[in-house]
């Protein structure tokens, strides 16, 4: 530690925000691929992404979606808690804002705050007043290309507590997501992502998905 005067955490945070080093925006493209063709996609991604030699990294997560009703605002605050089922790692708390579907932008952009935290988080949020909306298990592969993250995963329903977690699949496809978490003002990443998405065609068509048009979701 240095001998200099120590700064207040609030001050540090505002400095970090001003100098745009906090990754608080998510750029996202989504698509899907049938189970029968997923091997081709994995093969393609292994060729295109970093660490070509290693076998693709796998993940198996439980994602719990909660919301906090806010009296003064119409939209509730949406929070997600992600927990790895296959390894012992910190829980992840995510805030995801309303998506901006600006036509001029190549990807969906939404504000996002990712926070690693202790396993007390679910209890904490429940006592805070959050309500459980839904939960699911996602299992699949993760690839990296520079700062882009590509996941190919199977979404499964969380079965009754007595059953083994993650045995009921929701569909006959894999969800494919291409995302980057970046600080404000780095819009050029969108073009980078679009170019990468082009390279995955025609196996998978990555698009901006407007959830509101799908219905059923707030």
């Amino acid at each position, binding site marked *: *530690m240095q001998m200099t005067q120590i700064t207040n955490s*609030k001050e540090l945070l*505002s400095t970090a925000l001003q100098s745009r080093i906090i990754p*608080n925006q998510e750029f996202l493209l989504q698509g899907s691929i049938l189970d029968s063709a997923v091997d081709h996609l994995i093969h393609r991604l292994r060729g295109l992404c970093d660490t070509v030699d290693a076998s693709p990294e796998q993940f198996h997560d439980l994602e719990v979606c909660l919301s906090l009703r806010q*009296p003064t605002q119409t939209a509730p605050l949406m929070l997600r808690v992600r927990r790895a089922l296959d390894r012992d790692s910190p829980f992840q708390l995510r805030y995801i804002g309303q998506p901006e579907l600006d036509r001029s932008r190549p990807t969906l952009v939404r504000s996002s705050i990712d926070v690693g935290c202790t396993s007390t988080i679910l209890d904490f949020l429940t006592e805070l007043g959050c309500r459980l909306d839904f939960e699911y298990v996602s299992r699949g592969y993760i690839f990296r290309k520079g700062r882009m993250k590509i996941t190919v995963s199977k979404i499964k329903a969380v079965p009754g507590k007595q059953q083994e977690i993650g045995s009921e699949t929701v569909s006959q496809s894999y969800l494919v997501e291409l995302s980057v978490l970046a600080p404000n003002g780095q819009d050029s990443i969108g073009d980078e992502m679009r170019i990468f998405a082009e390279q995955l065609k025609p196996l998978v068509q990555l698009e901006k998905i407007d959830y509101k048009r799908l219905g059923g979701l707030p």
Partner: protein
Amino acid sequence: MGVTVLLPYQIPEGKTGAQAIDYLTKRLLALGAIHTGQFLVDCETYISTPQHGPAKTVHVLHDSEYPASTFSILDNGAGKQIPLVADNLFDLLMLKMTSVYTSKKQTKIESKGARFEYGDFLIKLGSVTMMENFKGILIEIEYRPCVVLSYCWEMIRETLQGFLGMPIAKEYPAYFSQQIMNTMGQQQIHTKQNEVYEPIDTINQYLESFTNYRKQNVLPVAGGATGGASSAQNAAANMQGGNQRMR
């Protein structure tokens, strides 16, 4: 990471806070402790709005010893406290909840001061200020090679007696003699002093002390000014600067 004991220091009669800090600093340096910079522990408390059911309290604390973390303790108003350790971006999330949880700005409190290394010990002399008012002195002492208090309390106690020049009770500090509840809410047979120590324990001790300082509420303004003296006023001035920048 070791075991930390937090001790409110009784300022001797007739001395100001700054004089007491000065006195302790001299004694530490004379023992051979090395001054290794500053430290800061701050605490802000958020309370849920009445529309949101029974009042709940979230205490958010930061400790410069763990600069990447934000510590939160949620008090549900029914005797249940849930601790949470998160990345420091958690502060941004708290800002998103302002319509449900509002900050009680007037109770923002911090302990700030010099940090010393003395062999295996880490000693911090903190002046506690709330709203620019000097509240008292908190001494933090950490014995770093060990993580269970019952194994090293005697050593910590001896060191404390050495540099404070006053006797310290043989019993474990109150925080460590509480019974541990397990997840089922049952009391376990052993107490905190035999548990593996974690950073959240330091935070809990600070919160306990801060809560006590908050309770002994509105000191006369004159007392705050004379007691505060230079270091506390500096701290207060810095705090104010920080707030202005935030706005």
